[in-house]
């Protein structure tokens, strides 16, 4: 059984926000909201500066606090790919998951339910990559099965130095950033 994850090469990412635009278009994300976004972290002092750009979204954590805190079972881990999803019909918009998510990955859709990245499951089920991965002009994003040691994502994690966001939150996120 697959366990989907993402690997993003921060050395290649230029922060163009193409992933953000692609996601909004693909998933009809309402104005003023987004399911993925760009963060920039500047370290050092002029002239020795180091800028790390990260394309961020729901980390589809192995230990997802948004699922355990959900009172209705709307937030759940899907069997296929172990992806964290929200059942819109079960969601009552209580925002417990918004508070629980250490990554700020969720928002309340104007229609009243919690919304977030789905890893573009509707595309993945058709054999396509998520929209953000597909459009990236620098090809810095990779999507695949973390449980398959032969997959591209597994090989990248095995061979490159990498980090995850907020490891101390204990959520075991499944988006890995290469440095």
């Amino acid at each position, binding site marked *: 059984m697959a366990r989907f994850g993402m690997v993003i090469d921060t050395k290649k990412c230029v922060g163009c926000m193409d992933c*953000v635009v692609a996601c909004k278009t693909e998933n009809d994300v309402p104005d003023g909201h987004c399911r993925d976004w760009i963060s920039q972290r500047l370290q050092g002092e002029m002239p020795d500066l180091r800028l790390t750009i990260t394309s961020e979204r729901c980390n589809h954590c192995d230990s997802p606090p948004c699922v355990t805190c959900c009172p209705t079972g709307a937030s759940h881990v899907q069997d296929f790919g172990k992806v964290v999803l929200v059942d819109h019909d079960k969601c009552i918009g209580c925002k417990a998951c918004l508070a629980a998510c250490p990554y700020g990955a969720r928002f309340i859709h104007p229609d009243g339910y919690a919304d977030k990245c789905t890893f573009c499951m509707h595309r993945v089920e058709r054999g396509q990559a998520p929209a953000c991965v597909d459009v990236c002009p620098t090809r810095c994003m990779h999507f695949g099965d973390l449980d398959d040691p032969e997959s591209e994502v597994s090989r990248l994690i095995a061979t490159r130095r990498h980090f995850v966001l907020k490891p101390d939150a204990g959520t075991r996120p499944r988006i890995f950033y290469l440095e």
Partner: protein
Amino acid sequence: MKQKGLVRGPQQPLYFEDGVPAEFPTPTGKIEFYSTQLKDAGFDPVPRYTRPADGPPGTFRLLSGRAPVHTFSRTQSNPVLRDAMDENEVWVNGDVGARLGLHSGDYVRLRNQDGVVSDRVKARVTAAIRPDCVYMVHGFGHTSKGLRSTFGKGASDAQLMTRYAVDPLMGGTGINVNFVTIEQGA
């Protein structure tokens, strides 16, 4: 033609032919790092760095550049791109910001050496810029009220570029030769 819809002619080499030694239209027929043509024309045969003139004391060199989100000044009212970036910011060095009491998010105006004052623009106080320069992304500060979603957002760098420099060697235009002061409380 009717059957295929497309007929390809023989492909011409774009620059150089495979297997044929490349020749350049220079006196030596090679790429010249030391150019006798430039020397004969009265220029440095090997290009030399010339330090640009400093601005008046107390002013900042205005640098301009692009954001990957927007294309020139054409896309600022596109709803999706506007959501990603709806106004530009003027980058100010952190030490300068501390001296002026300026914080990221404060609105300022820029006044250039010829008295041109920009629209109000948000400051971004950052270590990512030198203390003698300020930087802003091109394409904002639209003046047409008809562009309802972007009118009044950010400031125009072009408006502040009342001067430009011309490279005596190849005629290129240098636009980062304007100097501004920061007017707070905009």
